[in-house]
């Protein structure tokens, strides 16, 4: 449904994205994950036809974005990073305008309008001026605008930004419910968002794709390492240097004490068992051990790892 091949975009001398290639199948939800300035918005703008790539090919819904832009634009709903709203318009007339320029038949505009307002929780806001809406509601109007012509492909740049936690959950549910019938690309730097909504994740950093996989696979791919959380009590000072000679242990951090207990988070490389070594050392050092548990890494940590590693290399 969406195919990007070797996309590169330069702004003058600065390279925003370099050699970005990926594919999204029909009905799939793909998440774009990356820190600020990674190139998420740039990639999405190219796919939506806002500006052309310096190099590379993008095909959306079977049409080349650069050669047949109108065919692509008719089939794409795009929510830019900042919702593109006319503040002096009322929600209804704004959505009617967007519907019209997106080619929704006149007879269908009203039903579409009611449908998207219902979906985006705007049913009671049709008569409100957009400038009087709160940020979260403006974001919903932006989303409604992207959905109004029932496009095959949705490109959503940070769709949950500015929403309160309850609304975030609602919008995620909405996006999930759209999958299947619609093909969706969304970007975010909120990590749980991708694992919750997306079937596949692309992690992008400094304009390059660093990883591309399902959230589960990404987690297990880095199962090379794990985190061990240890609850203990005693003289915290004795922890320092305690595990120096265990080569698998990368680093140890000490959390804030509570009820006289403190939490150690130990980052271990590889899958080799080291818990027996840790417990023995701690007891030998006169510390009391209360609990020890292994955490599999969350996507968030993978993400941090991937990006910090990239930065280190640069």
């Amino acid at each position: 449904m969406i195919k990007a091949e070797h996309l590169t975009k330069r702004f003058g001398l600065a390279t925003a994205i370099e050699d970005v290639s990926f594919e999204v199948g029909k009905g799939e939800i793909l998440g774009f994950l990356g820190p600020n300035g990674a190139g998420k918005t740039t990639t999405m703008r190219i796919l939506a036809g806002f500006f052309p790539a310096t190099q590379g090919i993008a095909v959306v819904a079977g049409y080349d974005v650069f050669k047949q832009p109108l065919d692509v634009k008719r089939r794409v709903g795009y929510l830019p990073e900042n919702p593109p709203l006319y503040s002096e318009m009322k929600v209804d007339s704004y959505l009617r305008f967007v519907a019209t320029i997106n080619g929704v038949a006149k007879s269908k505009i009203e039903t579409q309008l009611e449908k998207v307002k219902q979906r985006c929780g705007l049913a009671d806001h049709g008569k409100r001026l957009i400038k009087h809406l709160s940020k979260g509601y403006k974001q919903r109007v932006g989303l409604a605008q992207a959905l109004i012509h029932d496009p095959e492909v949705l490109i959503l740049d940070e769709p949950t930004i500015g929403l309160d936690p309850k609304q975030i959950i609602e919008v995620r549910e909405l996006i999930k419910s759209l999958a299947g019938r619609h093909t969706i690309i969304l970007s975010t730097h909120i990590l749980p968002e991708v694992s919750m909504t997306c079937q596949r994740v692309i992690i992008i950093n400094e304009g390059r794709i660093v990883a591309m996989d399902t959230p589960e696979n990404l987690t297990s791919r880095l199962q090379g390492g794990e985190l061990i959380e240890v609850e203990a009590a005693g003289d915290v000072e004795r922890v320092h240097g305690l595990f120096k000679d265990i080569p698998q242990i990368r680093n140890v951090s000490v959390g804030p004490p509570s009820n006289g207990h403190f939490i150690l988070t130990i980052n271990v490389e590889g899958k080799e068992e080291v818990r027996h070594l840790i417990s023995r050392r701690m007891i030998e050092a006169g510390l009391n051990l209360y609990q020890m548990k292994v955490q599999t890494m969350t996507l968030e940590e993978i993400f941090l790892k991937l990006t910090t590693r990239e930065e280190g290399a640069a």
Partner: protein
Amino acid sequence: MRNFLAILKKELQALFVSPIAYVVLAVFFAVGGYFFYIIMSSLVNQAIEMGFRYQQMGAPPPPIDMPFLVMRNFFGILSTILLFLIPMITMAAFAEEKRRGTMELLATSPITNTQLILGKFAAVLVFLLVMLAPTLLNTLLLYLYSEPSFPLAPVLVGYLGAFLLGGALLSVGLFVSSLTENQIVAAVVTFGIFIVLWVIDATAGMESSLTNETIKYLSVLNHYEDFTKGVLDTQHLVFYLSFIFLGLFLTSTSLDSAKWRQ
């Protein structure tokens, strides 16, 4: 066509909710009315004085075509008022769309640049008509109190001239607005270009070389002159229409190239 109408409607809505539009209209009516009054009274005074002078010489005063003089002076003043007000009508056209990010909506919707530009141009033309239409009242008054009554066709030609001049200036304004994100910058630059267009024939030398002729040809006011006299000449019609076409074409080029620069 549907897209064009959608843009036109949206633009008109935007124009008529903005306070700038009402300020422009108010200033236009106030200044236009004031000058109409000044023109009338000074011409009447002149006529009376002239009548006295001829009386002293014992000769009958020659006939004066008052309506003609009033209208001609009025159209002259009108062009100057347009010079000041048109930058404010067009400054927001594209600059505001870019500033608030709605250009991203338009540029990713299945509409063409031509539809977008023509829609916006049509909207500012409608605004120009809304400005000009009420001044017909002045003409009407003049018509009702003129003895003998004067032919209306030359007046309408004058209005056509004002409309074409306005259209040409509006197309320049749209072009400048498409170059920047800042509407104040757009207004100032547009105004600067208008001033150059106003005085450009003063920079032409006396001898008739090709450059001088070209410069004179470019003067938007030279072509306006005949209209104010009620003379309809296709040469001037062609000038304004090509001018407008060029302005809109440059706007389209600028929008296209902005895509690559962004």
